[in-house]
């Protein structure tokens, strides 16, 4: 495991030997993951590898059967509020209220986070950064899929999280929007020193990550830089490395489900 991630004060996320079962199905099996601040970690796994279960645990929807999760040094089970306050999430499902305006959607979030007067300024800033300041009064319904995702990302950043979780955020986006989103999050990671955990089943989204974690059947089967993974598998593509590791065909880009 990379050295930086193990220093507690630099850790955005620490998942330690977490297990979760649904009945007899072991969705996650003693999984450990660390994300340092300023680090972009891709969580690569085929559908059904346990990514969704992990994200449910990371967002506090459930608690793990065993093991512990810390966000920015706060235990998810015992200090869940402090942990959630440091967590920004973009969910796989769209979560904008389409009837409300863009600004109202963001205001809903700042209020839930109790941001008070600082909120207005933060909303303006984040919208300006993604180039949607002029559309803040429009209903979210009027935005394109790519712009809706950007607003969801802006929303996740409003309370200045230490860790940004992206749960298959490019599902349903066209290739152009997909690339822009990946670029933007890399930039955020650099500029704001945020830890990013980016879950995907699309190998090309993991190419530029600092580290790639390969999840397969609830277990971490590899964690390394993309280059080292390629080298280890003796191939020159991450996709081939992924295939060698999991025995599954990688998906290059979004396929119709």
């Amino acid at each position, binding site marked *: 495991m990379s050295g930086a991630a193990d220093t507690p004060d630099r850790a955005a996320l620490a998942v330690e030997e977490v297990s979760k079962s*649904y009945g007899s199905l072991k969705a996650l099996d003693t999984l450990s993951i660390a994300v340092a601040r300023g680090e972009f970690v891709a969580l690569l796994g085929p559908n059904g590898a346990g990514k*969704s*279960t992990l994200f*449910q645990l990371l*967002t*506090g*929807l*459930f*608690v793990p059967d065993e093991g512990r999760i810390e966000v920015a040094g706060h235990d998810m089970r*015992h*200090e*869940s*509020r*402090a942990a*959630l*306050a440091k*967590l920004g*999430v973009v*969910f*796989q*499902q*769209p*979560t904008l*209220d389409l*009837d*409300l305006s863009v600004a*109202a959607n963001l*205001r*809903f*979030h*700042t*209020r*839930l*986070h*109790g*941001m*008070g007067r600082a909120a207005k300024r933060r909303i303006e800033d984040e919208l300006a950064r993604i180039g949607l300041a002029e559309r803040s009064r429009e209903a979210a319904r009027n935005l394109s899929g790519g712009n809706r995702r950007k607003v969801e990302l802006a929303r996740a950043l409003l309370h200045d999280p230490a860790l940004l979780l992206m749960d298959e955020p490019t599902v349903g986006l066209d290739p152009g929007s997909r690339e822009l989103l990946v670029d933007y999050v890399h930039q955020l990671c650099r500029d704001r020193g945020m830890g990013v955990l980016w879950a995907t089943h699309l190998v090309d989204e993991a190419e530029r990550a600092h580290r790639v974690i390969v999840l397969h059947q609830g277990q971490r089967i590899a964690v390394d830089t993309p280059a080292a993974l390629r080298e280890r598998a003796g191939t020159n593509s991450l996709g081939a490395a992924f295939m060698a590791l999991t025995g599954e065909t990688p998906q290059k880009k979004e396929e119709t489900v």
Partner: protein
Amino acid sequence: MSLPRIGHVLQALLALSSRETVKFFHQRGRLASAVVRPSLWLLIFAAGFKNVFGVSVLPPYDSYIEYQVYVVPGLLGMVLLFNGMQSSLAMVYDREMGLMRLLLTAPLPRSVLLACKLTAGTVLSVLQAYAFLVVCALFGVDLPWWPGLLTVLPALILTGLMLGALGLLLSVYIKQLENFAGTMNFVIFPMFFLSPALYPLWKLEESGATIIYQLSRINPFTHGVELVRFAMYGQFNAVAFAVVAGALAAFFAIAVWGYDPQRGLVRRKG
């Protein structure tokens, strides 16, 4: 863990309340039906039954009253019941749409979030109840307007909270939107008909419908309606208050339990 800041809780309440209210006023159909539904009962049902039921003098009334007057507290209860259930429908909808996930990642205890959600729904319930009272006034129903309009408020709030908490509780167990039709059949209608909303319970007892009479007596909605009825005449019905407050506490506690991450709510969602 320390208590959340009161300012934070108030902001969360404002967030949920304004969202609920704004959405309600966007949905014209819902807005109309909230007022039209009880109005139809008042104008058509009550008109038809005006002379069928002889309503005798019974507390809180001190003289013979028209059927229209009798039925208003029950219809207020209906307004609260429908909106309470519709708020729970919205919870299920939010869950399917993922908005619930967003709500649950707010850095507040779940019980506080649920209490905010419940309060937000109740604000809307009470607003609708007053809108219906305006209709009653327009059609000249002989109600104790002053100070009845004021004294009924706490009863509307408490009953609204209780029915909203029941909705919250159901939202834990209703897994899909389609099941809402089932809620109508198995919750709203039985609660409404097994109550003194449309006729006093002694009528049931008198006609020998003992089981229905006993079921009606333990129905929390019955006590909600009576609480509202008495409050409208400036009277306090202690039994009704105790049952409604107790049911509120119980429903809310079970709902919080159901939303507890240790036990899991959206089990099958992936």
